[in-house]
């Protein structure tokens, strides 16, 4: 029930913040963040973004890796050396992810509900 209420509140907030015809409010362009995969580590290992932000993952390692959510809500599949993959986080929450090929590689992305 509390989750549902939170969802409703976010929906209301979104409606309230919709710029519509108000030219004084700048368009809410999704911000971009980048996670580099290097030396079998995600950098940064913990990233905080906002709903709608796009994150680019770049594999700077010689070895292939994946960016796979523990809850399977997203999965880059195999990222070869120099491979990139992007994901837009549409829902707030804390996302734990790991590399399917090297499961001890772990990192987290926190998605906040209100954008700036």
């Amino acid at each position, binding site marked *: 029930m509390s989750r549902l209420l939170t969802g409703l509140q976010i929906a209301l907030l979104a409606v309230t913040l919709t710029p519509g015809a108000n030219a004084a409010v700048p368009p809410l362009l999704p911000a971009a963040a980048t996670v580099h995969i290097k030396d*079998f580590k995600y950098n940064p290992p913990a990233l905080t973004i906002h709903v709608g932000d796009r994150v680019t993952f770049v594999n700077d390692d010689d*070895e292939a890796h994946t960016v796979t959510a523990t809850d399977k809500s997203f999965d880059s599949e195999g990222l070869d050396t120099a491979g990139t993959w992007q994901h837009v986080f549409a829902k707030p929450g804390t996302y734990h992810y790991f590399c399917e090929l090297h499961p001890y590689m772990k990192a987290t992305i926190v998605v906040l509900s209100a954008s700036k």
Partner: protein
Amino acid sequence: MKRDDFLKHVAWTGSGIAWTLSSSGLFNAQKALAAESTISFVQISDSHIGFARPENMDVTGTLQKTIAAINAMPVQPTFVVHTGDVTHLSKPAQFDTAKQILGTLKAPLVVLPGEHDVIGTSDAFFAAFRRSDAPKGWFSWDQGGVHFLSLVNVFNFEIDGKLGTEQIDFVEKDLAAQKSSTPIVVFAHVPLYALFPPWGWTTEDGSRVLAALRRFNAVTVLNGHIHQIVQHTDGNIRFATAASTAYPQPAPGTADKPGPLKVPDSKLLSVLGYRSVEIARNAATITDSTLQK
């Protein structure tokens, strides 16, 4: 096996077998031999078709060289087993290439998946190598007096190598039906024991399978995954990981991380290769061959 070969083999492995030259003794030994296992097979591993980095720009070529060496063996193996990571990124095109090259082997082929073959989904692996007798991927069979188990420890790859309860139940039931005197050979991609857990070189739920293997006289567990030869004996169980056909990896703990290891181009073929295994009278003879001395 001819008697001469058998004697050579005994001398080679040094396994202590009573052998008398009295006529009755010879007769008994030969009679016993007829009932014993004698089989040879070849293991190859970690071909990573699709990989193209300075560590090896031609993994297709090195796999072809490996197969040429196996096809040139004077006595062809009963079968060739590929212990996983056939491809680098589980792409259907990579499986197509691998299947074409592996199809040039003279001997029958058994393939089990590595984690690189089931990234995201195991569909492409099964499309290439599904067996009707292994709907879930794992299976067992008897050949040449030896009981073989081919296992999959790369599904549910969230925590290192993992077999899963369903597969372990299968193994326990399967082994319960075998005589303790039957030689057992087990294949799996990731090492079944804790070879080097910090790099994920272990199977987190492997202990139940190892426990079920304890009562047998002779067990050989053959793995890939770590791209180097490591042998280890624990009681009745002999473990051996195989070299890759693509590129080496650092020895456990000798680098900050695992992954492709660059060696001088002139040395690459001397760290890639294949393994011949002969099981005779409960003794496994393991011979690793490189593509270049």
